[in-house]
């Protein structure tokens, strides 16, 4: 019996001493930063079911809620990496994504939160050392709608090109290849024209509102 207790204590101590995943996952960050959407797909698919199961023990929500939270988490990671706000992860990608998904669910389901289970990720969340990594935009709903409406007015080619250049951070050459344009100069000129048009639309909308 004593021996059993000793083994249990050793194992517990070992677990406690075991360092959290502090290794920066540069391979994931690198793949995302290279603009590989396949890497996003893979990240999304790889931990999806595990997140649903994990979140299902903590929130009384339906699968669609978990799906939305999971998508938000993956998109947040991609956006933060592409904007250069994240260059390395303090924890592994799974912990990062689960924590962001958890926060999304907390925001949506404050009243029905259930904490029945606890693991390393919960401890990470409770330490509160994680959130400074995520910087969210604070644009008002009205402004968001106005910006979305300006974007919708653009041609689909302009929209796609601008997204590739300013969101997916693709190079002019990559965009030229994707859109089958004749050369880099014409690609650059088209992008400038599209951006100028978008700015005009935003300006017109803000003047009209004022």
């Amino acid at each position, binding site marked *: 019996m004593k021996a059993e207790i000793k083994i249990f204590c050793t194992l517990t101590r070992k677990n406690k001493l075991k360092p959290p995943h502090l290794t920066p996952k540069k391979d994931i960050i690198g793949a995302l930063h290279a603009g590989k*959407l396949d890497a*996003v*797909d893979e990240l*999304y*698919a790889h931990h*999806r079911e595990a997140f649903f199961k994990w979140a299902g023990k903590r929130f009384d929500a339906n699968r669609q809620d978990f*799906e939305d939270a999971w*998508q938000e988490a*993956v*998109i947040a990671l*991609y*956006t933060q990496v592409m*904007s*250069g706000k994240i260059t390395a992860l303090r924890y592994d990608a799974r912990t990062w994504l689960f924590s962001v998904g958890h926060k999304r669910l907390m925001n949506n389901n404050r009243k029905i939160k259930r904490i029945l289970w606890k693991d390393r990720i919960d401890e990470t969340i409770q330490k509160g050392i994680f959130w400074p990594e995520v910087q969210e*935009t604070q*644009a008002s709903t009205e*402004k*968001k709608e106005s*910006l*979305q409406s*300006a*974007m919708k007015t653009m041609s*689909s080619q302009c*929209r*796609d090109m*601008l*997204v*590739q250049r*300013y*969101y*997916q951070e693709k190079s002019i050459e990559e965009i030229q*290849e*994707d*859109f*089958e344009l004749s050369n880099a100069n014409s690609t650059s000129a088209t992008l400038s024209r599209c*951006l100028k048009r*978008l*700015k005009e639309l*935003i*300006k017109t909308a803000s003047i009209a509102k004022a």
Partner: protein
Amino acid sequence: MEEKDLELIEGHFRNNLNGQEQANFQRRLATDGGFREAVQLHSDAVEAIRMEGEAMLRARLTAKGRELDAQPNRRKNLWWLWALPAMLLCAGAIWWAMPTPTVEPHIQQTPVPPTSPTLPVETTPSVIPPVKNEQPQAPPQREARAAPKIFASWFHPYKDDTLEPSVRGDAEPSPSEVFQQRYWVGDYRAALDAFEIMGATAQNNDNLLFLKANCLLATGNAGEAVSLLENIIRNDRSRFVVQAPWYLALARLESGQEQQSRALFQSIAADPNSPRQADALRLLDSLK
């Protein structure tokens, strides 16, 4: 605003400015109202693009999620495919092991003469006539048989004048032009091959995906066409979006989803804005 100012602003947003440029940027921001306004406008434009990018990514992940959710079902179906022969084998083994009653048909067929005229003879039919299936599950079977015929008679790959490829001198056609040319001449398998070598953006273009869905329908891959058309309708970015429900209903019919197909045809038939309203009404008549 001059070109070099715009470059300075863009450089700032891309974190590409050196120390001197950054100092220049900050000085202009503090002293020049027009410059400040241009910076704000650029910031708004980048925010609009970011929101659009996120919406596109969300649509992509939703499609991926649907694909993943469909996988376990397929696995379950495969499990049943394995289980069915196993069950048949078990049933066969049980039947083999069971003692079979000896049947002497000629005795049964011969009516037994009455031993006594006073006793009524119970006449049992010598051979039990096969039960006639008076109601051979008419509606579902007829529908199942009818679906491929209806699909074949109603499905015509979408074409309009705008799809006709223009001839451009001696220049090498781009992969998406090759795709459209092959589609236009009705070589749908070759068009699908051409689609595979197109650029990533072209492959995600909902107009071209609509044509791809038609190619898939024409080459007998209705299941994949269903998911493509569902996405096109959901994204609402294609100029063919008003045509898409008709092809989705046909794709569902062909892939065996008769109920969903019928419901969609009914909604098309009830929609006065649908270019396929009359077709849907006639098709529903033929489904009855």
